């Protein structure tokens, strides 16, 4: 590998994105050439990169390692050099028979890497070498997704996926693996012009979680929420949808994200009772502490089920407990936050925003009033409540709770009104919420996504974060309408959930709703973050009790501000839930790191961010619970918020949420989660991804200040 940097004078002393270092990996030389030119072109917009022209591979002194690789794999490194920021390098990895181009000024040098493996090696050697990686999906020597994962995990670099195939499934896969964006070939310059945002997002996220996250969180929740529900269902879809919208507006952003909006919907894993039972069984067998997605997956032994599915399900389930605790702590604060978040998110998914007055799920039963709230719903509600707790918006998450009558969480506080106790399902939420039938405890509730365009993440948590709305009630319609979340009050889950016997129980509550989510046991084991959450007793969601469709959890909720009992909220959101929870948490979390949640909160925050991301893309199950939680939190928040929004009533909540969001970590977390959650709508999957990625990296959201204290989850729902 030849690495020669010629640092000539740096023409650009500008700040970022000048000098952004990009590593591009692709086996298609034409594409690389195009990419290189496009990137070079972008320098005129501030990106300065240099590369050495290489005429022929013989020009290189391949080291021993290189020569061992087939020479048709080569990479070029384009270096963006900026004296101030840092030299940027665009490493282009590709398969070439020979180097096809030579550049002189303004290019400085080209690093040629032989293969994706080499690229990885190079990255590993110096983690500080690049700012961004663009990687092809389809490569001979290494799967692009694998590279993506490795890079994301090891180096915490934003990775953009590139492929000729714009299939939503792949995009989703990219998202779940942590990509911050997914471009479809042929790449347009507009798309590349903005890739630097991913880097900024990350750095900002890291550096200033607080500030940014707040904004982002806000944005995210809103987005997540609104979209969440639908997103939950199809993170991918939502992401896409949102993206699509966004694309319309600013095409440079994820223009590529989804090429075919029409195929936004992705099939979600539907956590049937059967499946959920298996899941719960596996979790129980492993023990909460040890129940990791991989093991669960193995134990479950279900064909076609991926680790991601399991992880998200797990997350969804765990989230409720987290939410619950958070909820307890920050009922009011969260509510506000949620509102804000919801508002922020509102863009796409109203449900989330609607969180508004979700009152604790406590009265989950009453929720049934609105009609959808069936017992199952109620149970969901509890979950939802839990969610709601997370952030006021989270309440919304309780989406599972029948939106209609939002049970005002016992937690009165909510000035925010927003997500107050889970138990409460805000009636207002209902309308908009798609919870079409959430509580029926069916995964279909996940379908509630209605909120989001596609968010109907299949009942199961596909909640991708956004599901907040779903969470809230989507599931059982109970919640806000945002069916998206798996909050799913699925009655069925309840059963399963209860069986889970989560240590935290609280989780179960939520889980009730969503079959997937609420696996109490899952929660326990969840790696999902915050173990602390799980361990929080308070969190014990009544869910367990609520096992039956009656949401026994609901009653629980009622008692507790958190009322997660509504747990029926059962995080149907599975994935989304997780996301949502996270998000929800985020909202809350952000505020008080000290909260129990604190940690979780952080995660949540991240989660939210991630949720955002997940909204767009399904949060990878792999993510740490924290992340998920974070996302979930957001999701919840968002979801809640969105639900609320949908409900329309939650305007206040929305605002509250927003406010909260700002205060809350959630908002802050947002940035954490990912560099740039775009408020309101995830502009791009990137945001989500970033959030997600961020989340992964940020175990604890420092900023998470879960304002759950006064937060009434229920309301959120």
């Amino acid at each position, binding site marked *: 590998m030849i690495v020669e940097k010629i640092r000539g004078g740096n023409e650009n002393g500008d700040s970022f994105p000048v000098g952004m270092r990009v590593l591009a990996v692709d086996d*298609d*030389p*034409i*594409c690389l050439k*195009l990419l290189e030119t496009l990137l070079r072109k972008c320098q005129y917009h501030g990106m300065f990169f240099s590369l050495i022209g290489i005429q022929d591979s013989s020009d290189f002194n391949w080291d021993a390692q290189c020569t061992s690789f087939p020479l048709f794999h080569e990479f070029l490194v384009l270096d963006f050099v900026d004296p101030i920021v840092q030299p940027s390098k665009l490493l282009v990895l590709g398969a070439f*028979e020979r180097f*096809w181009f030579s550049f002189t000024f303004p290019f400085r040098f080209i690093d040629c890497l032989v293969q994706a493996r080499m690229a990885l090696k190079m990255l590993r050697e110096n983690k500080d070498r690049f700012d961004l990686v663009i990687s092809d999906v389809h490569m001979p020597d290494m799967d692009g997704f694998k590279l993506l994962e490795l890079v994301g995990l090891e180096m915490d670099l934003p990775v953009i996926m590139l492929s*000729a195939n714009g299939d939503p499934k792949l995009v989703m896969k990219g998202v779940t693996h942590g990509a911050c964006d997914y471009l479809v070939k*042929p790449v347009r310059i507009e798309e590349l012009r903005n890739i630097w945002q991913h880097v900024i997002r990350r750095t900002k996220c890291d550096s200033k979680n607080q500030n940014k996250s707040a904004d982002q969180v806000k944005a995210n929740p809103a987005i997540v929420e609104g979209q969440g529900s639908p997103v939950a269902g199809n993170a991918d879809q939502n992401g896409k949808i949102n993206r699509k919208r966004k694309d319309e507006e600013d095409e440079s952003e994820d223009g590529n994200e989804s090429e075919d909006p029409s195929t936004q919907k992705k099939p979600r894993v539907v956590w049937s009772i059967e499946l959920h039972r298996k899941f719960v069984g596996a979790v129980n067998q492993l023990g909460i502490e040890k129940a990791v997605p991989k093991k669960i997956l193995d134990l479950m032994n279900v064909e076609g089920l991926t680790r991601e599915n399991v992880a998200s399900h797990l997350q969804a389930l765990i989230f409720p407990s987290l939410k619950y605790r958070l909820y307890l702590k920050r009922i009011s604060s969260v509510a506000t936050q949620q509102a804000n978040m919801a508002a922020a998110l509102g863009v796409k998914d109203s449900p989330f925003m609607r969180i508004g007055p979700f009152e604790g799920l406590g009265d989950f039963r009453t929720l049934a009033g609105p009609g959808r709230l069936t017992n199952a719903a109620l149970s969901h509600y509890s979950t939802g409540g839990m969610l709601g707790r997370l952030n006021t918006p989270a309440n919304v998450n309780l989406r599972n709770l029948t939106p209609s009558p939002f049970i005002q969480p016992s937690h009165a506080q909510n000035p925010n009104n927003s997500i107050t106790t889970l138990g409460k399902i805000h009636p207002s939420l209902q309308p908009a919420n798609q919870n079409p039938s959430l509580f029926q405890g069916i995964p279909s509730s996940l379908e509630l996504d209605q909120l989001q365009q596609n968010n109907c993440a299949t009942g199961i948590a596909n909640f991708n974060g956004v599901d907040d709305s779903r969470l809230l009630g989507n599931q059982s319609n109970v919640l806000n309408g945002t069916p998206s979340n798996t909050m799913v009050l699925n009655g069925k889950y309840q059963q399963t959930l209860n069986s889970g016997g989560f240590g935290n129980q609280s989780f179960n509550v939520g889980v009730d709703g969503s079959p997937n989510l609420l696996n109490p046991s899952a929660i326990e084991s969840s790696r999902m973050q915050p173990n602390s959450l799980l361990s929080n007793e308070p969190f014990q969601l009544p869910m367990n009790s609520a096992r039956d469709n009656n949401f026994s959890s609901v009653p629980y909720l009622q008692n507790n501000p958190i009322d997660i009992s509504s747990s029926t909220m059962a995080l149907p959101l599975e994935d989304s839930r997780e996301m949502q929870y996270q998000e929800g948490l985020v909202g809350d979390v952000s505020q008080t790191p000290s909260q129990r949640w604190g940690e979780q909160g952080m995660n949540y925050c991240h989660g939210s961010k991630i949720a955002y991301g997940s909204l767009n893309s399904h949060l990878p199950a792999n993510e740490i619970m924290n992340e998920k939680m974070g996302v979930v939190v957001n999701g919840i928040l968002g979801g809640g918020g969105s639900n609320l929004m949908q409900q329309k009533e939650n305007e206040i909540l929305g605002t509250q949420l927003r406010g909260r969001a700002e205060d809350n970590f959630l908002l802050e977390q947002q940035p954490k989660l990912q560099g740039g959650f775009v408020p309101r709508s995830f502009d791009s999957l990137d945001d989500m991804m970033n959030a997600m990625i961020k989340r992964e990296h940020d175990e604890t959201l420092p900023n998470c200040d879960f304002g759950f204290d006064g937060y009434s989850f229920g309301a959120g729902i």
Partner: protein
Amino acid sequence: MQRQLANMKQSLFDQGYLDEQFIQLEELQDDTNPNFVEEVVTLYYRDSVRLIQNIEHALDKNPLDFAKLDSHMHQFKGSSSSIGARKVKIECTQFREYCRAGNGEGCKRTFQQVKKEYATLKKKLEAYFQFARQAGPVEKACRPK
């Protein structure tokens, strides 16, 4: 001459040989990169030889490995779409359909089409670039009406 060149290009678009992506390439061409489009196209024709060979070898095998065929074609299609080779891309898509359906005969037939379009486009573009060189440097390409 410029006019002729423009007409040539326009007809390529009209006949569907090229699409929007080609325009993108042209837009990237500028003073610092005056022959970008030609370079990319040249690179494409050079690199795609390898891909085409791969596909041909795979088609000769028995039984056919559709996954591999699809994978090769995916790559080829990606390259083709990068330069805006519309007809080639269409045929590639068709090929992949047959791959997915497990239709070996369909694949082989379509591949012949792919090669045909590929060769046709190559000739046309060669003529176009030659003409362009003769016509002298022109202003940046503008979108065809």
